[in-house]
């Protein structure tokens, strides 16, 4: 009874601002797809045979679905979160076995003329499941390691299934949910460690040409970072000023000695030097920890040891675990290698297309690079090129600003939810958007490796569009009824 009356008033409580940005992005998307696939012979935006025409049908259906989603009671999503999640997991599992091989991945289910990608729909299902987990009675992430296991299981099961479909890009998108864990209490050190790992990796891989003290410069730089982080952790995290001073003196003093020896033509091997000074410092800190039983000191030592081990494994991982084409993509992205006809072709052509746009662009349908198909996948993953070329810096920036506005709005909506379910779900939506925006545009402008994920609302394809429509409209539905369902927690 109560839910019926909310159905009638639901449209008064919808966050129309979000709907407006959604419509703006989707409409801009259609025009971009039309521009990207525009042929000199064809010229009909609505032509059903063209990508833009098809996309318009997908959008129409997406709107209809959005309205349907709004008509459900908000509690339906919470109630059926796990069943939906499990259903999607089953579909993804089946997909591995029945999907045909399309461009090297088995992630598409084909029904006659229609194709859709379960991995995309897994996004909202996983978000619902994660939100449901956190909204459980008295659930606190940090209360028990078991809670972590459950949360990680919800995230990693779909990741594994999607990896099995050989659709790495989509799988990586689920990692964005770590933002949600952070918001719900996971230590910031985890994100910091991830950040360190990424920067260590980049430095170690990028600076391999120059040799410093008998080892690649990149490795030496990482060692120095590890040493610096240790000093700062002692100072700021452990508040052990004396220890920080001693370790700093030890590092700098030994470095000075090595330098003087080097001037006298006595060359020490870098690896031996760095390892020995770091181990000595670690032993010193461990002794201090025994005396004062400071847990933070041990964490500091652990971080240093883990960093050194990570550095050693980077080389192994890069050369032995990664496939040659993946190594190449990474090298091209880091600017170590220039391979304009191979792996770097996409990115180079995409940079040419965007770069040639100038301040105000060449004008709608006047882009030469995209029209002449210099940029591969330009109506899907590389759709942002078309905007960059035809709308210039102004248009490209406006699109970025629109996305930023949407993300900040979603964060705002998430935070204003009285229920944990609503909040966690909202953060899931924001996290997916952040990841897709950062990786897709980063890849198109040559700042990230080429990971094949679409730009939400812009890239051609029903699955991606519907997936983000689901995510957004379910959030809007939950948000619309937040006042009528005061927190029951």
């Amino acid at each position, binding site marked *: 009874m109560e839910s019926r009356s909310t159905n009638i008033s639901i449209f008064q409580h919808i966050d129309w601002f979000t709907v407006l940005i959604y419509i703006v992005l989707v409409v801009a998307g259609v025009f971009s797809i039309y521009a990207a696939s525009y042929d000199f012979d064809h010229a009909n935006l609505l032509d059903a045979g063209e990508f833009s025409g098809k996309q318009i049908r997908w959008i129409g259906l997406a709107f209809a679905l959005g309205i349907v989603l709004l008509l459900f009671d908000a509690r339906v999503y919470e109630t059926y979160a796990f069943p939906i999640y499990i259903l999607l997991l089953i579909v993804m599992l089946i997909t591995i076995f029945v999907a045909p091989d399309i461009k090297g991945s088995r992630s598409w289910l084909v029904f006659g003329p229609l194709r859709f990608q379960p991995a995309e729909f897994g996004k909202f299902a996983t978000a619902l499941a994660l939100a449901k987990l956190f909204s459980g009675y008295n659930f606190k992430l940090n209360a028990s390691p078991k809670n972590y296991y459950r949360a990680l299981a919800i995230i990693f099961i779909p990741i594994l299934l999607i990896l099995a479909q050989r659709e790495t890009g989509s799988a990586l998108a689920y990692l964005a949910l770590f933002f949600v864990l*952070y918001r719900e209490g996971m230590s910031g050190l985890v994100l910091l460690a991830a950040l360190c790992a990424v920067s260590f990796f980049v430095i170690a891989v990028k600076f391999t040409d120059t040799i410093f003290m008998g080892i690649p410069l990149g490795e030496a730089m990482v060692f120095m970072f590890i040493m610096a982080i240790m000093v700062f952790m002692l100072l700021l995290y452990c508040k052990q000023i004396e220890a920080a001073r001693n370790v700093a003196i030890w590092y700098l003093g030994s470095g000075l000695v090595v330098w003087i020896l080097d001037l006298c033509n006595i060359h020490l091997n870098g690896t031996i030097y760095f390892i020995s000074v770091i181990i000595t410092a670690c032993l010193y800190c461990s002794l201090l920890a025994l005396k004062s039983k400071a847990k933070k000191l041990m964490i500091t030592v652990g971080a240093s040891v883990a960093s050194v081990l990570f550095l050693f494994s980077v080389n192994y991982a890069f050369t032995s675990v990664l496939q040659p084409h993946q190594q190449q993509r990474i090298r091209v992205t880091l600017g170590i290698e220039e391979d304009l006809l191979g792996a770097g072709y996409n990115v180079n052509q995409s940079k040419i297309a965007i770069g040639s746009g100038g301040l105000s662009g060449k004008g709608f349908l006047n882009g030469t690079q995209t029209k002449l198909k210099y940029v591969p996948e330009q109506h899907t993953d590389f759709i942002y090129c078309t905007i960059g070329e035809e709308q210039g810096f102004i248009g490209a920036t406006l699109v970025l600003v629109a996305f930023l506005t949407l993300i900040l709005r979603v964060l705002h909506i998430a935070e204003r939810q009285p229920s944990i379910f609503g909040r966690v779900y909202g953060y899931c939506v924001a996290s997916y958007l952040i990841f897709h925006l950062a990786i897709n545009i980063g890849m198109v402008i040559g700042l990230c490796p080429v990971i094949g994920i679409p730009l939400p609302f812009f890239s051609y394809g029903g699955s991606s569009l519907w997936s983000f429509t689901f995510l957004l409209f379910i959030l809007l539905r939950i948000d619309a009824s937040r006042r009528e369902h005061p927190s029951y927690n």
Partner: protein
Amino acid sequence: MRKDYNLEKRKYVIGGFIIVIVAIYVLRLFNLQVLDSRYKDDADSNAFLRKAIYPSRGVIYDRNGKVVVYNRQAYDIMMIPRDVQEFDTVDFCRTLNISPERLKQRITDMKDRRLNPGYSSYSPQILLTHLNDEDYGRIQEKLYRFPGLYIQKRILREYNYHCAANVLGNIREVSPTDIEKDPYYSRGDYTGDLGVEKSYEKYLRGEKGMEILIRDARGQIQGRYENGAHDKKAISGRNLKLSIDIELQQYAEQLMQNKIGAVVAIEPETGEILALVTAPSYDPALLVGRDRGKNYSELRNNPRKPLLDRSIQGAYPPGSTFKPSQGLILLQEGIITLGTSYPCYRGYINSGLKVGCHPHGSPIALKPAIQTSCNAFFCWGLKAMLDRRSKYGSTAEAFEIWKNYLVKLGYGYRLGIDIPSESRGFIPNAKFYNKIYGEDHWSANSIISVAIGQGEILATPLQIANLGATIANRGWYRTPHVVKEIEDTVLKSEYTTKHIPPISIAHFESVAEGMRMAVTGGTCRLANLKDIEVCGKTGTAQNPHGRDHSVFLGFAPYHNPKIAVCVYVENAGFGATYGVPIGSLIIEKYLNGDIADDRKHIEQRMLEANTIIYSGVKKH
């Protein structure tokens, strides 16, 4: 459940994270799109294929409107390396009848940036040049099998008359230095080399056009950029009308076959050159087409130096053809009058110096001196001038005056003919002799041989002929030139203005009369045609290299002259033996159109004569 406000702050971390990312991306976009212009150029070379359209080169006509040089299509195979995919090289080589090694070598050369500085894999490069029609036909059918290759039409030259190579010049592929000097050219273009092809290059070449085509990522042409709105039409080169009478030229070249030397014929009224012959010569068609390189090096290594244009580059002692100029100077300076006579006892004999002469009456005045080519008269005349201190102050000053007259008559400097590499000849000045003998340590006798066109004096056959034209005009000349008209353009004023040496018409009249007498009863009797009053002067030029050169300077008719001629035959002996007959035949041919029957035997003898055999032979 109580809200955890500590955790709520983390929304700022996440929000801040995405704000920072977007800010970085905006900066990156700004750098890519606004600051860095490299990508715009890349985009252009990606999408636009600029294809040159070659204009047809100007056609060259002779003075009577006969086509001398015209165009022929040739075909180059161009290659856009970026668009080339694997193709059947065996089929390709067999179609064009070339070896796979040659093809490989061509591609290696093409990519070598030292040989081909303009190499870019995006722009058209030349793979093979000068395909003939047959090869073109065969490859055209198969071209679709070789993506990235296309045919570029080019213009080559074809010659109707295989003569006048020195006047016409030829065309060659531009060198890297040409491209550096003139950005109009790009690799594979042609430019004029030698002759009018070089000096009138800017008129003949026209202006290249440009077709801008749109090319997609697979290298396929999608159409014209904005329907050709930015295309540029090629502008055809301008046609030239030479002043050369191509048949006279051909005839003169025939007369000069098996001889070394030059013939210059000028229309005195206009300064237009009717024939400009150097011997030995070559067929201009040798320097066009695929064998150009081979032929060129053969010509360059030929000991007879056919590439040297002796008519404008050969600096010879003018010998007795110099004497009319001496008569003019002496009269104008008042050193002599028509009545002044000098003695000649088989030569000029003065203070132990003797310049020999042949037997004739003595003493002798100017006109008969020209008639009989008396050496002594002109030696005495020059001595009188250089010794006249009352008028000039010193020998050196008198000599400067003398020299200035010669310069005004066109000697000593380039006349400025409109083809390249003209030589200036040599007329010494007082400084020159001061250096040799010391200041005031030389006198008329030291340098007396300049009076008869020997000694240090050097002149080109063109300068000698120009003196003939000046006398024919009785006192002025126009700079000799080989191009009469340029289509849609007026000739440069330097070819239409009169040059007037400061010598009175009356003196020219006297010298002309002397030259007429030389024909009627002097050294040039062989030129005494029945119906044409020819005036002439022989020359027998001594030279350090061997036998005397045989020279003739003449013009006709005596009144209202239509042609002035200089003939210079190296090592052929007396002026009367070769110079006069050849000169008179050219005059007769030009004015009458044919050679009189009673002179056919002279023509025959000249055509058959071989004086090359005397070249390099020491005088006995």
